């Protein structure tokens, strides 16, 4: 006898979980830099356009698929359009690959939380991070030795993920009430501290001064769509899984708006914390702001620690605030990715979630081990690039093609409108059918061309074949095998093709 499906205790908890998933490290270390590089304040125009024409429509699509079909990504895709379950497995595989290295970055944050007490990075945070802490080897082929502090941090991260997920939605619901608002509060503390530092206004000028001429540059628009697409958490299969724990007849469109606007709002706020601090750093060292600004690891583990050391008042406290913010931002995304895997396996084989959670966390920990060696940062960079550029983008593109061209899209829109707080018009159909897939296709083609000449990141080609194309191929192959295996014990087909599948009563608790 099938058990009733787990449910979120309230709409608020679902929204918090979705926001926690969307808002991650990229909101702090990527958005401000992308905005600065692409026209400053003027970048907000393409960013908002991208949010409303790609981010929100795709979120509605994923929420709608999960909520309507009451299944995790692979099973929901298969029900939506028979033969497409492998795309769901691919999305789940990408989540598993991403969380493997994402947990390693969180391990760094755990270690840096500890280092903040004494500002262990001293006067040269750059050398400390790359030479002392990571002791980065010369090339991807030189493994070196295992880094024990990172291994400890990795274990701590996976223990945290296990403890959060072990009681399913009950524990997740209790955790997100704290872990979603907390980083926003910490971010506000950093903004207030940042804007009161010398040189802050100079830094903020670089972040916000609009260069309207950049709006004519197609690269700026692609950057905006790329930022939105990779930030709101679509293409990972998690939003589908999370939405499948909502009853079929509850809001979709408003939840998508709230999730996307919160994601954008937190990114925008993070820019104030980052650029005010970078302005302070530039002021202290008497260098132009563009020389001090960095993104990614460089911002979080080099530029920010440098600024923290030189803060005139309680540097240790602000160091703890910053790295605690990174950890609380990251943990929601990390356990969300694991939940996508657990939900898919549970829905496919009915394995007890409790048992599989332990197995998944141990497996995730083991998958992260290659990134703990001295050459880990190289592999992390390669796998991250491929997972995002070829994984998430292609899954998003395929979802748009299926929803826009292979099912009755208007009926899907009618379903969204029937259950939601407010209705969406034909613009949603236009975005899903034409606009978003065309932009994703252009992004994909452009990345592919850039890949060929020169090679990504100047890494040796063999390392790109293993960490990039190799990992991508393995994930796709496993997805197809899982899909074929599940086809063997098939399921009667859902009447999507004859039009009943997306307009009738939601088949909850199946």
């Amino acid at each position, binding site marked *: 006898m099938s058990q*009733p499906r787990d449910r979120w*205790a309230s709409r608020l908890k679902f929204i918090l979980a979705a926001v926690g998933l969307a808002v991650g490290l990229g909101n702090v270390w990527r958005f401000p830099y992308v905005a600065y590089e692409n026209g400053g304040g003027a970048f907000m125009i393409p960013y908002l356009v991208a949010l409303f024409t790609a981010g929100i429509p795709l979120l509605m699509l994923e929420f709608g698929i999960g909520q309507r079909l009451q299944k995790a990504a692979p099973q929901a895709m298969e029900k939506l359009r028979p033969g497409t379950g492998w795309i769901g497995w691919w999305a789940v595989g990408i989540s598993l690959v991403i969380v493997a290295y994402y947990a390693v970055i969180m391990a760094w944050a755990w270690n840096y939380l500890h280092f903040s007490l004494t500002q262990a990075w001293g006067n040269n945070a750059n050398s400390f991070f790359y030479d002392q802490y990571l002791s980065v080897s010369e090339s991807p082929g030189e493994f070196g030795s295992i880094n024990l502090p990172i291994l400890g941090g990795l274990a701590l991260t996976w223990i945290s993920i296990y403890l959060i997920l072990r009681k399913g939605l009950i524990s997740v619901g209790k955790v997100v009430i704290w872990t979603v608002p907390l980083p926003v509060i910490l971010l506000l503390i950093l903004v207030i501290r940042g804007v009161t530092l010398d040189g802050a206004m100079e830094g903020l000028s670089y972040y*916000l001064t609009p260069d309207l001429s950049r709006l004519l540059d197609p690269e700026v628009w692609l950057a905006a769509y790329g930022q939105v697409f990779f930030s709101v958490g679509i293409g990972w299969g998690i939003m589908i899984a999370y939405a499948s724990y909502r009853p079929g007849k509850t809001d979709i469109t*408003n939840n998508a708006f709230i999730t996307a*606007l919160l994601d954008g709002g937190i990114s925008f706020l993070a820019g104030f914390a980052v650029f005010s601090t970078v302005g302070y750093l530039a002021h202290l060292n008497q260098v132009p702001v563009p020389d001090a600004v960095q993104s990614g690891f460089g911002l979080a583990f080099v530029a920010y620690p440098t600024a923290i050391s030189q803060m005139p008042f309680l540097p240790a406290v602000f160091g703890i605030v910053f790295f605690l913010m990174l950890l609380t931002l990251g943990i929601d995304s990390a356990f969300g990715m694991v939940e996508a895997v657990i939900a898919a396996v549970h829905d496919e084989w009915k394995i007890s979630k409790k048992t599989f959670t332990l197995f998944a966390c141990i497996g995730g920990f083991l998958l992260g081990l290659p990134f703990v060696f001295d050459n880990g940062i190289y592999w992390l960079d390669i796998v991250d690039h491929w997972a995002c550029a070829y994984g998430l983008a292609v899954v998003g593109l395929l979802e748009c093609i299926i929803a826009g061209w292979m099912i009755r899209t208007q009926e899907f829109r009618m379903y969204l409108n029937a259950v939601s707080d407010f209705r969406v018009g034909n613009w949603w159909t236009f975005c899903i059918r034409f606009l978003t897939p065309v932009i994703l296709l252009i992004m994909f083609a452009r990345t592919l061309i850039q890949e060929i000449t020169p090679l990504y990141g100047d890494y040796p080609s063999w390392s790109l074949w293993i960490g990039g194309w190799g990992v991508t191929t393995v994930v796709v192959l496993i997805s197809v095998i899982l899909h074929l295996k599940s086809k063997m014990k098939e399921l009667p087909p859902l009447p999507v093709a004859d039009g009943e599948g997306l307009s009738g009563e939601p088949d909850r608790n199946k």
Partner: protein
Amino acid sequence: MNISAVVFAILTSVFLYGGLAVCIRIALMKNRDTVETSE
């Protein structure tokens, strides 16, 4: 900081945070599925 930077910051805030406030208000007004239980 120049005036155009301030104007763009205000406009972006209005769109993002104002839009969010409107959506939350609609959700609170409709408030039709706050009692979905099963914890």
